[in-house]
């Protein structure tokens, strides 16, 4: 099933990528080829086969509840794009209306 141009635009929105029309066209063609290729996994008879999400069969890992030093606010904020009153300053997060 080929991927529609509208679906690619929707994927870009979900992915928080503000792509131009030309870039969307280019990506749509490439994604179509890639999705057709990876769909090959559907040929495999896998009924009743459990899924593997991780190569190491891990149980939950705990550590002792001990205090250690964490990074200072100055160090953490030193790489922020914008800082105000020792906090990350971000663009508005609520709509006007």
């Amino acid at each position, binding site marked *: 099933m080929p*991927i529609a141009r509208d*679906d*690619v635009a929707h*994927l*870009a*929105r*979900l*992915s*928080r*990528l*503000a*792509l131009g029309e030309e*870039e969307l066209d280019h*990506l749509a063609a*490439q*994604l179509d*080829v*890639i*999705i057709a*290729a*990876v*769909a*090959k*996994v*559907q*040929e*495999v008879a*896998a009924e009743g*086969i*459990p*899924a*593997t*999400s*991780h*190569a*190491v069969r*891990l149980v939950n*890992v705990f*550590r002792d509840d001990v205090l250690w030093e964490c*990074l200072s606010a100055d*160090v*953490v904020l*030193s*790489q*922020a*794009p*914008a800082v105000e009153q020792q906090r*990350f300053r*971000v*663009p*508005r*997060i609520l*709509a006007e209306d």
Partner: protein
Amino acid sequence: MDGELTGMTAAALAAAISAGEVSAAEVTDAHLARIEEVEPRVRAFLHVAAGQARAAARAVDQRRAAGGDLGPLAGVPLALKDVFTTVDMPTTCGSAILDGWCPPYDATITRRLRDAGVVILGKTNMDEFAMGSSTENSAFGPSHNPWDLGRVPGGSSGGSAAAVAAYEAPLGIGTDTGGSIRQPAAVCGVVGAKPTYGGSSRYGVVAFASSLDTPGPLARTVLDAALLHEVMSGHDPCDSTSVNAPVPPVVAAARQADVSGMTIGVVPELAGEGCQPGVLARFSETVELLESLGAKVTEVSCPHFSYALPAYYLIAPSEVSSNLARFDAMRYGLRVGDDGTRSAEEVMALTRAQGFGAEAKRRIMLGTYALSSGYYDAYYGKAQQVRTLIIRDFEAAFERVDVLVSPTTPTTAFPLGERVDDPMAMYLADLYTIPSDLAGNAAMSVPCGLAPEDGLPVGFQVMAPALGDDRMYRVAAAVEAALDARRGFPLLNEARGLA
């Protein structure tokens, strides 16, 4: 003296420094001079940290002068992939979105290198966020293969592989998610090992696909790779997927270099259609060589390996779409379009569109697709089942043989630009390396000669079960010793790109 120092192995350098025959400072200066000489052509590094390297070398010399204990790699220079955080050098992951970022903490592996007295010369180029097989996806331009500057050094750890092959450093560190250590090692004619998943810490390694990412060593000899493997590995409480088990005895295995009594399995699914004839020829000769050295060779079919590539290109992008969501323009990295009128979400989307390169965008969108409701079961869910079947193929194989072998990559180094806008062609470079990543097993590449049609290096891949890393070093060291003896000099002497 400078040329002699840069030509030495890590093991020999460490011994000479420890014996006081040469200072760590001299060794570092020699490598910095070599970097200055060849970097304009190779472009292996994104950042050379000459001052920090000299200071680290001086500290080793002072420790020695004070009678302190030097570790097995103290004073040896190393090229570190730019995906490991370093407090005193920028960390960009080859991405414009992290251009100029100075991390607030060291990766566990960075810390272990410093503690071991290893001298970090700088940070090496890579495909953006380790996604690619050529370094052409780096926002800062590609690196060049020291065998032929018009060809790729492989990727994503292509900068580290090129630095080691160009004698800019005897040691390099990369990360392997689908082949990103072994494939560049193969096409640059050096040794590269992917340890067992969880055997080397991911703390402070900027995440690509968390269930696959594995840091590992690159070097010009199998023993050097093993020495670095031991120094960088071991349990890390800061990484919840770190394996709490002793590091496999890889140095002893590399010194043993003996395959007599071992059973070696050739995987027919990993040496068929699409494999360059010269690659196949060198591979087959190496298998015969192992037989002549006393190994028993048998064919072992792994029927689901043919589905490893499609499964990987669903699993890895799915994890990418989640992991790269952290680049949101809010707390660190690039922020564009914040003019007071735009919302946080608009700024985020503009920043990501400008800051990520083409391959990162493709994979984020592919992963978003594979995880969306309605497609999840048919794509991501199915790929996870295929992953189980690949693990079972390995388990069945390792009941019959000690290691599996194949060519590392289907072709030798390809020309720069050839595959950059053809993602599927690029993905095929990892065809033979991906199965071990999906299973979390150990695997490595060792040079096995030059392809007759183009005179470029061919890699021989040895795959071992999880925590059986020492087995692959035994085999790789035996191959290296036999081929060096037959040739009479190291393979890299034939590299002409910088001649």
